[in-house]
Protein backbone atom coordinates (compact mmCIF):
# COMPACT_ATOMS: atom_id res chain seq x y z
CA UNK A 1 0.00 0.00 0.00
CA UNK A 2 1.37 3.41 -1.02
CA UNK A 3 0.41 6.28 1.27
CA UNK A 4 0.21 9.95 0.40
CA UNK A 5 0.69 12.54 3.16
CA UNK A 6 -0.74 16.00 2.53
CA UNK A 7 1.45 18.99 3.25
CA UNK A 8 -0.11 22.39 3.95
CA UNK A 9 1.67 25.59 4.90
CA UNK A 10 1.76 25.17 8.68
CA UNK A 11 1.69 21.38 8.75
CA UNK A 12 4.26 20.12 11.24
CA UNK A 13 3.73 16.38 11.62
CA UNK A 14 3.95 15.40 7.97
CA UNK A 15 7.50 14.03 8.32
CA UNK A 16 6.56 11.70 11.17
CA UNK A 17 3.44 10.69 9.24
CA UNK A 18 5.59 9.96 6.20
CA UNK A 19 7.94 7.87 8.33
CA UNK A 20 5.01 5.96 9.86
CA UNK A 21 3.53 5.33 6.41
CA UNK A 22 6.89 4.09 5.11
CA UNK A 23 7.16 1.68 8.06
CA UNK A 24 3.60 0.54 7.62
CA UNK A 25 3.14 0.26 3.87
CA UNK A 26 5.14 -0.16 0.69
CA UNK A 27 6.05 3.48 0.34
CA UNK A 28 4.87 6.98 1.00
CA UNK A 29 5.12 10.40 -0.55
CA UNK A 30 4.24 13.95 0.34
CA UNK A 31 1.40 15.63 -1.56
CA UNK A 32 1.68 19.42 -1.73
CA UNK A 33 -1.54 21.27 -0.85
CA UNK A 34 -1.75 22.89 -4.29
CA UNK A 35 -1.72 19.54 -6.07
CA UNK A 36 -5.00 18.41 -7.58
CA UNK A 37 -3.61 14.93 -8.11
CA UNK A 38 -2.91 12.26 -5.53
CA UNK A 39 -0.52 10.52 -7.96
CA UNK A 40 -1.87 7.01 -7.62
CA UNK A 41 -1.58 6.59 -3.86
CA UNK A 42 -3.74 3.94 -2.14
CA UNK A 43 -4.41 5.89 1.04
CA UNK A 44 -4.04 9.42 2.34
CA UNK A 45 -2.97 10.93 5.65
CA UNK A 46 -4.05 14.47 6.48
CA UNK A 47 -1.39 15.28 9.08
CA UNK A 48 -1.26 17.38 12.22
CA UNK A 49 -0.02 20.91 12.61
CA UNK A 50 -1.55 24.32 12.07
CA UNK A 51 -2.61 24.40 8.44
CA UNK A 52 -2.80 27.96 7.07
CA UNK A 53 -2.08 29.17 10.60
CA UNK A 54 -5.40 27.72 11.79
CA UNK A 55 -6.87 31.16 11.11
CA UNK A 56 -10.62 31.55 11.55
CA UNK A 57 -11.06 28.00 12.90
CA UNK A 58 -8.66 25.07 12.89
CA UNK A 59 -8.93 23.40 9.49
CA UNK A 60 -11.39 25.94 8.07
CA UNK A 61 -9.09 27.24 5.34
CA UNK A 62 -7.28 24.00 4.53
CA UNK A 63 -10.52 22.33 3.50
CA UNK A 64 -10.63 24.58 0.40
CA UNK A 65 -7.19 23.55 -0.86
CA UNK A 66 -6.92 21.77 -4.22
CA UNK A 67 -5.42 18.69 -2.53
CA UNK A 68 -8.47 18.44 -0.26
CA UNK A 69 -10.73 18.46 -3.31
CA UNK A 70 -8.78 15.46 -4.57
CA UNK A 71 -9.05 13.81 -1.15
CA UNK A 72 -12.83 14.34 -1.01
CA UNK A 73 -13.19 12.74 -4.42
CA UNK A 74 -10.93 9.79 -3.50
CA UNK A 75 -12.76 9.31 -0.18
CA UNK A 76 -16.09 9.16 -2.00
CA UNK A 77 -14.57 6.37 -4.09
CA UNK A 78 -13.67 4.43 -0.94
CA UNK A 79 -10.00 5.34 -0.52
CA UNK A 80 -8.77 5.13 3.11
CA UNK A 81 -8.17 8.57 4.58
CA UNK A 82 -6.68 9.18 8.01
CA UNK A 83 -6.92 12.63 9.56
CA UNK A 84 -4.70 13.14 12.58
CA UNK A 85 -5.20 16.06 14.97
CA UNK A 86 -5.31 19.11 12.66
CA UNK A 87 -6.10 16.63 9.88
CA UNK A 88 -9.13 15.48 11.89
CA UNK A 89 -10.20 19.14 12.18
CA UNK A 90 -9.76 19.60 8.42
CA UNK A 91 -11.86 16.51 7.63
CA UNK A 92 -14.63 17.71 9.97
CA UNK A 93 -14.60 21.18 8.42
CA UNK A 94 -14.70 19.59 4.96
CA UNK A 95 -17.78 17.61 5.94
CA UNK A 96 -16.01 14.29 5.33
CA UNK A 97 -16.44 13.46 9.02
CA UNK A 98 -19.28 14.32 11.40
CA UNK A 99 -18.87 16.72 14.31
CA UNK A 100 -16.41 19.46 15.23
CA UNK A 101 -13.40 20.01 17.49
CA UNK A 102 -13.51 22.80 20.05
CA UNK A 103 -11.10 24.43 22.48
CA UNK A 104 -10.00 22.07 25.24
CA UNK A 105 -12.23 22.37 28.26
CA UNK A 106 -9.42 23.75 30.46
CA UNK A 107 -8.16 26.05 27.67
CA UNK A 108 -4.71 24.47 27.94
CA UNK A 109 -2.64 22.95 25.19
CA UNK A 110 -2.20 19.37 26.41
CA UNK A 111 0.75 17.19 25.46
CA UNK A 112 0.92 13.74 27.03
CA UNK A 113 0.69 10.02 26.38
CA UNK A 114 -2.94 8.84 26.38
CA UNK A 115 -4.62 5.47 26.53
CA UNK A 116 -7.26 4.81 23.90
CA UNK A 117 -9.73 1.98 23.58
CA UNK A 118 -10.73 0.78 20.16
CA UNK A 119 -14.48 0.48 19.97
CA UNK A 120 -15.58 -3.04 19.12
CA UNK A 121 -12.31 -4.91 19.69
CA UNK A 122 -11.76 -3.29 23.11
CA UNK A 123 -8.01 -3.16 22.37
CA UNK A 124 -6.01 -0.58 24.30
CA UNK A 125 -3.56 1.73 22.55
CA UNK A 126 -0.99 4.00 24.12
CA UNK A 127 -0.19 6.96 21.88
CA UNK A 128 0.72 10.63 22.38
CA UNK A 129 -1.81 13.46 22.23
CA UNK A 130 -0.88 17.14 21.80
CA UNK A 131 -3.51 19.71 21.01
CA UNK A 132 -5.30 22.82 22.18
CA UNK A 133 -8.51 22.27 20.23
CA UNK A 134 -9.32 18.61 20.61
CA UNK A 135 -12.66 18.59 22.37
CA UNK A 136 -14.85 16.48 20.13
CA UNK A 137 -18.39 17.76 19.88
CA UNK A 138 -21.51 16.72 18.03
CA UNK A 139 -25.17 17.28 18.93
CA UNK A 140 -26.77 14.50 21.01
CA UNK A 141 -28.91 13.08 18.21
CA UNK A 142 -25.89 12.94 15.92
CA UNK A 143 -23.88 11.13 18.64
CA UNK A 144 -26.65 8.55 19.05
CA UNK A 145 -26.63 7.98 15.32
CA UNK A 146 -22.82 7.65 15.21
CA UNK A 147 -22.86 5.08 17.99
CA UNK A 148 -25.70 3.13 16.36
CA UNK A 149 -23.77 3.07 13.06
CA UNK A 150 -20.53 2.00 14.72
CA UNK A 151 -18.81 5.25 13.66
CA UNK A 152 -17.13 5.87 17.00
CA UNK A 153 -13.72 4.30 16.39
CA UNK A 154 -11.71 5.19 19.51
CA UNK A 155 -12.50 6.52 22.97
CA UNK A 156 -10.21 7.84 25.67
CA UNK A 157 -9.79 5.30 28.47
CA UNK A 158 -11.00 6.29 31.94
CA UNK A 159 -9.03 9.27 33.19
CA UNK A 160 -7.49 10.07 29.79
CA UNK A 161 -10.09 12.44 28.37
CA UNK A 162 -8.29 15.65 29.26
CA UNK A 163 -9.88 17.83 26.57
CA UNK A 164 -13.53 17.28 27.55
CA UNK A 165 -14.65 15.40 24.42
CA UNK A 166 -18.30 14.29 24.50
CA UNK A 167 -18.74 10.63 25.40
CA UNK A 168 -14.92 10.31 25.63
CA UNK A 169 -14.70 10.22 21.84
CA UNK A 170 -11.15 10.40 20.44
CA UNK A 171 -11.81 9.24 16.89
CA UNK A 172 -14.71 8.79 14.49
CA UNK A 173 -15.23 7.44 10.99
CA UNK A 174 -17.57 8.31 8.16
CA UNK A 175 -20.52 6.00 7.51
CA UNK A 176 -18.57 3.83 5.12
CA UNK A 177 -15.65 3.50 7.53
CA UNK A 178 -12.92 4.51 5.06
CA UNK A 179 -12.39 7.99 6.50
CA UNK A 180 -11.04 8.09 10.06
CA UNK A 181 -10.24 11.11 12.18
CA UNK A 182 -8.27 10.80 15.39
CA UNK A 183 -7.11 13.53 17.78
CA UNK A 184 -4.07 11.73 19.31
CA UNK A 185 -1.06 10.98 17.10
CA UNK A 186 -0.53 7.38 15.94
CA UNK A 187 2.36 8.54 13.70
CA UNK A 188 4.38 9.37 16.83
CA UNK A 189 3.96 5.84 18.20
CA UNK A 190 5.57 3.59 15.59
CA UNK A 191 8.98 2.84 17.10
CA UNK A 192 9.84 1.06 20.38
CA UNK A 193 12.42 3.82 20.92
CA UNK A 194 9.61 6.24 21.79
CA UNK A 195 7.78 3.78 24.02
CA UNK A 196 4.96 2.40 21.88
CA UNK A 197 4.28 1.00 18.44
CA UNK A 198 0.51 1.00 18.94
CA UNK A 199 0.09 3.74 16.36
CA UNK A 200 0.75 1.26 13.56
CA UNK A 201 -2.50 -0.51 14.47
CA UNK A 202 -4.41 2.61 13.44
CA UNK A 203 -2.76 2.44 10.01
CA UNK A 204 -3.58 -1.29 9.90
CA UNK A 205 -7.21 -0.56 10.56
CA UNK A 206 -7.41 1.66 7.49
CA UNK A 207 -5.37 -0.72 5.36
CA UNK A 208 -8.00 -3.38 6.08
CA UNK A 209 -10.64 -1.03 4.65
CA UNK A 210 -8.59 -0.75 1.47
CA UNK A 211 -8.12 -4.49 1.11
Amino acid sequence: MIWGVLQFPGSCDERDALNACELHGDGARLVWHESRELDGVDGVVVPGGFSYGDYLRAGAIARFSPAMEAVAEAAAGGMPVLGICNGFQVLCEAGLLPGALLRNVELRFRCHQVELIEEGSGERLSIPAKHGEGRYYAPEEMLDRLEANGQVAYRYADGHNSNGSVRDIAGVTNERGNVLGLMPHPEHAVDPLTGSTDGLRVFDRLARVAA
Partner: protein
Amino acid sequence: MLIRPKEGILDPQGKAVERALPALGFEGIGHVHVGRMVELEAEDPERLGELCEKLLANTLIEDYEIQTL
Protein backbone atom coordinates in the same frame (compact mmCIF):
# COMPACT_ATOMS: atom_id res chain seq x y z
CA MET B 1 -20.79 39.50 10.95
CA LEU B 2 -21.10 38.43 14.54
CA ILE B 3 -20.25 34.81 15.15
CA ARG B 4 -20.84 33.26 18.54
CA PRO B 5 -20.86 29.80 20.10
CA LYS B 6 -24.27 28.15 19.89
CA GLU B 7 -26.43 28.24 22.98
CA GLY B 8 -25.80 25.20 25.14
CA ILE B 9 -22.29 24.48 23.86
CA LEU B 10 -19.69 24.76 26.58
CA ASP B 11 -17.67 27.94 25.96
CA PRO B 12 -14.51 27.69 28.07
CA GLN B 13 -13.28 31.12 26.88
CA GLY B 14 -16.45 32.77 28.13
CA LYS B 15 -16.16 30.85 31.41
CA ALA B 16 -12.54 31.91 31.89
CA VAL B 17 -13.45 35.57 31.36
CA GLU B 18 -16.39 35.20 33.72
CA ARG B 19 -14.24 33.66 36.44
CA ALA B 20 -11.71 36.51 36.17
CA LEU B 21 -14.27 39.28 36.65
CA PRO B 22 -14.82 39.17 40.44
CA ALA B 23 -11.07 39.60 41.02
CA LEU B 24 -11.27 42.87 39.08
CA GLY B 25 -14.21 44.08 41.11
CA PHE B 26 -16.91 43.36 38.51
CA GLU B 27 -19.80 41.71 40.29
CA GLY B 28 -23.11 40.50 38.95
CA ILE B 29 -21.92 39.61 35.46
CA GLY B 30 -22.84 36.21 34.07
CA HIS B 31 -23.42 34.23 30.87
CA VAL B 32 -20.24 35.52 29.24
CA HIS B 33 -19.72 34.18 25.73
CA VAL B 34 -16.74 34.96 23.54
CA GLY B 35 -17.28 34.98 19.79
CA ARG B 36 -15.74 36.97 16.98
CA MET B 37 -16.61 39.79 14.66
CA VAL B 38 -15.69 39.92 10.99
CA GLU B 39 -15.78 43.30 9.27
CA LEU B 40 -15.85 43.50 5.51
CA GLU B 41 -17.00 45.62 2.59
CA ALA B 42 -19.22 43.81 0.11
CA GLU B 43 -20.55 45.00 -3.23
CA ASP B 44 -23.29 42.38 -3.10
CA PRO B 45 -24.54 41.87 0.49
CA GLU B 46 -27.05 39.31 -0.80
CA ARG B 47 -24.45 36.57 -0.66
CA LEU B 48 -23.11 37.26 2.83
CA GLY B 49 -25.31 34.58 4.38
CA GLU B 50 -23.80 32.03 2.05
CA LEU B 51 -20.33 33.30 2.97
CA CYS B 52 -21.10 32.75 6.65
CA GLU B 53 -22.49 29.27 6.01
CA LYS B 54 -19.55 28.19 3.87
CA LEU B 55 -16.60 29.74 5.64
CA LEU B 56 -16.96 32.30 8.41
CA ALA B 57 -19.10 30.19 10.74
CA ASN B 58 -19.30 26.48 11.43
CA THR B 59 -23.05 26.22 11.86
CA LEU B 60 -22.77 22.99 13.81
CA ILE B 61 -21.21 24.90 16.70
CA GLU B 62 -21.74 28.59 15.93
CA ASP B 63 -24.56 31.03 15.19
CA TYR B 64 -24.02 34.07 13.02
CA GLU B 65 -25.70 37.39 12.60
CA ILE B 66 -25.19 39.89 9.78
CA GLN B 67 -25.35 43.61 10.44
CA THR B 68 -25.25 46.03 7.51
CA LEU B 69 -23.92 49.52 8.09
